[in-house]
C-alpha cells in the first residue's frame, strides 16, 4: 500500500475542494454510467475510469460520477448520461475512453454537447 501519509495530504487538499463546492450547491454536473452486465461487457469500466481521470486532471470541482443499471438499450452501451443543471439531459452512446476527453472538454467545461456522440445522432441514421 502506498503510504497513508500520502493519503492524508490528498485528504486535506480534497477537503478544501469539497468546502468550495458546498458554496455553489445546485451547480453540480452529474455523469451517470450504465454498469449492468451489458454495459460492463461493452466497456463501461474503462469509460468510467477515464471520466474520473479527466475530472481529476482538470481539477473539475463541480462534477460527480455515478452508476446506473441497464436501461434496456444494451446494443448502444457503453452509455453515459451527462446532466448539467438547468439543461436537458444528454445521453451519449457507444462511448469509449477516447471519446471521454472531448465530452469533458466540450460539454462539461464549455457547455456544448458533442452532438455526433449522442443517442439522437446514432438513432437517426
Amino acid at each position: 500500500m502506498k503510504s497513508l501519509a500520502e493519503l492524508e495530504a490528498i485528504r486535506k487538499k480534497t477537503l478544501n475542494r469539497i468546502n468550495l463546492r458546498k458554496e455553489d450547491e445546485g451547480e453540480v454536473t452529474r455523469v451517470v454510467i450504465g454498469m449492468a452486465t451489458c454495459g460492463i461487457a461493452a466497456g463501461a469500466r474503462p469509460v468510467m475510469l477515464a471520466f474520473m481521470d479527466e475530472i481529476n486532471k482538470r481539477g473539475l470541482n463541480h462534477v460527480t460520477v455515478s452508476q446506473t443499471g441497464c436501461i434496456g438499450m444494451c446494443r448502444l452501451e457503453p452509455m453515459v448520461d451527462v446532466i448539467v443543471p438547468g439543461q436537458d439531459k444528454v445521453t451519449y452512446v457507444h462511448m469509449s475512453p477516447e471519446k471521454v476527453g472531448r465530452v469533458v472538454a466540450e460539454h462539461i467545461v464549455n457547455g456544448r454537447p458533442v452532438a455526433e456522440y449522442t443517442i439522437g445522432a446514432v438513432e437517426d441514421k
Partner: protein
Amino acid sequence: MRDISLHILDLMQNSIRAQAKVVSLSVLLDEKGLLTVVIEDDGTGMSEEMLSRVASPFATTRTTRKVGLGIPMMAENCRLAGGGLSIQSTLGKGTKLTAVMDTASIDCLPLGDLPGTVTTLVTMNPDKPEFTLTCRSPKGEMAFDTREIKEALQGVPLNEPEIAAWIQESLREEIEPLFGGVIL
C-alpha cells in the same frame, strides 16, 4: 466478457444489489496455476429454489426483462478453462461464489485490470457496502479494506477523483507484481 476482472465487476454487483454490508473478494493463484476467485457477501442470500436455477440465463431478480447473463457467462468461461463455478447461499445470511479456472488452459481468460475493477466498485459505491480484497500468488500477497481507507479519510468520500486516483494507483502497485503479465 473479455477478462476475469470484468466478470468480477459484474458479479459483485449482485452482492451490492443483495444489500450486503461487507463484500469480500479474494483472488488466489496457486503453484499449479489454478486460479480461484471467491466473492462472499453478507447480503440477503437466496432460497434453495432460486439457488437451484441461478446458473440458468433465464433466472433474474430484475423486473425489466426475463434474462440475466452474469452468472451463466462466468460459469461457462470457468468450465471452458477446466474449472467450474459453485454458489453457496443461505437466505438472510449471505452468498459465497467460488470460481475456479486453470490458467494453463488455452481458453482461460486473462485476469485483466483487477485494480480498475476494485477502483470502480469502491468509487461507484462510496458509502456502502464495505469492500475487502485479498490477492495471493506464489509471488506474495496483498490485502485491501475500505474500512481502513475510510478511517484515514475521516469523512472525505471515496468517490472524490483524487482519492479514486490514489486508490487505483496503490492497488496497481500491489497487485501487478503478484500476477505479472500484461494487464489489459
